[in-house]
């Protein structure tokens, strides 16, 4: 998160960050996933942010919605870099849900934050057999405790997932129902 903040500040100074409004309605995420949203969100667009679309309701780093569509075997689930000093986390097509969650856990704790899985269960996602997980993340950079929820499924060896996190006091409870509706509306195309 600290790295993300630094990147965003740098890009903002360079005029490379754009915050676009995501309007209510059906939205395509990449080539193979679509979701329906019932209220507007903000979509952060900047070079080098990684393969997921970054959406936020309150603004980063308060809350963050990551939407992954069509992540291929061997592809990183976060922005690359780190000069080889930080572990990189890549999706493998033969991963089980536990391993996919462990991969996201690794990604979210690259900065020294701590992750605690509170639930992992089977759940349909995008019309496919998938999984849902709930977690708590204590962010290293500011000691804020976040609640998080995610859904995922693998289709044709590609990963599709939605992950949301926000401070557990107030913000998560405020936006989690909307996020759940977005996740439930997801469809994955053939």
């Amino acid at each position, binding site marked *: 998160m600290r790295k993300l903040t630094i990147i965003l500040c740098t890009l903002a100074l360079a005029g490379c960050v754009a915050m676009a409004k995501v309007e209510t309605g059906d939205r395509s995420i990449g080539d193979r996933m679509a979701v329906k949203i019932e209220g507007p969100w903000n979509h952060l667009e900047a070079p080098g942010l990684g393969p997921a679309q970054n959406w936020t309701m309150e603004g980063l780093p308060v809350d963050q919605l990551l939407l992954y569509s069509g992540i291929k075997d061997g592809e990183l689930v976060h922005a690359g870099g780190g000069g080889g*000093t930080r572990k990189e986390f890549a999706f493998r097509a033969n991963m089980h849900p*536990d391993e996919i969650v462990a991969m996201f856990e690794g990604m979210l704790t690259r900065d020294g934050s701590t992750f605690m899985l509170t639930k992992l269960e*089977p759940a349909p996602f995008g019309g496919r057999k998938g*999984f849902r997980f709930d977690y708590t993340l*204590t962010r290293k950079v500011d000691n804020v405790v976040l609640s998080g929820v995610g859904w995922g499924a693998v289709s044709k060896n590609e990963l599709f997932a939605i992950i949301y996190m926000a401070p557990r006091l107030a913000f998560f409870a405020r936006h989690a129902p909307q996020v759940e509706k977005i996740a439930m509306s997801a469809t994955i195309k053939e």
Partner: protein
Amino acid sequence: MPLRFVRPEPATDEGGLWAIMDRTETELRRSPFLIRDKSLRDYVQDIACRLGGDHCPDVRVYLVRTPLFNASMAPNGTMQVWTGLMLRMENEAQFAAVLGHEIGHYLERHTLERLRDVKSASAFGQFIGLFGLVGAIGQLAVLAGLFSFSRDQERVADRIGITLMRKAGYDPAEASKVWGNLLAEIKARPDGDNEATVPMFATHPGVAERMDTLAQLAAEVPGGDTRTETWRAKIKPFRRDWLIEEIRRGQHEESIALLTRMIASAPGDAELLVARGEVYRQRAKEKDLELAMTDYQTAVALGGEPPETHRGLAMVYRKRGEPDQARASFQRYLEMAPGAPDAPMIRSYIEEPGK
């Protein structure tokens, strides 16, 4: 050993430095990453006190949950020790070596020296103009943090550390082993011998040279205790959590080097074998699943294995296309950990036909 330090005047550069460190300490006390277990804190505080001698009342140790090798001591007496360092220590003497080294920097007031070096090298007047005196010291303290202690300062701290270890009854020969062990981990990384990737190494140049120096210093007056069994018993209740955090780092090669070393000194320790099995399984390179299976099975044979042993076994069986063994292992996992957060997922694996 110098006399105990008196709190400096707030208007001085040293006073400004203490004020910044006081603020950091206040934040640290509230941090969710702080380990608050009294028995462990008292144990570590006692080690620091025995090393610090008359300075004991001024040394305040904070254990911070971070799976990296690091310890530091601020001029106001705040000492931070990260759990990744504690996991890597083989005995109390090695731990004392690190604390003694940090106390050495404290006794010699190296941070203040560093601040003054930066100050003299900078246009300090410009900083005062921009930030005021306290603000300027704050900026310089941040700037000073970017620079390493000098090699001379490190040598002095090493020498003091060895002296303090000896006075407290520890075997000083353990000091050089700390760095040797860590160097072996770093060399196991895919990026080779990049010492700067370890926080303490980033400010501690010349590890190989320091290992030799420490060994020479220890050889001058050999002998002393390692207190290995005491150390193992004290950290045992916390070690499983630290191992889980080590695995989560995803630095597979480093973790395998670390765990292989730990297993070599405690071959009957099921917890360590399972931790290495988990790393192999997550790395999933050629032959890793077989290596993971061997570690899990050895742990089961030893007994006292943690529940995740059976989940790991089941995952390997699934990948090998052995559904009956996978089901049996998943069931054993659920028997041992019925309330595990992933229990609903595991039940779904058991119910899957043909998998």
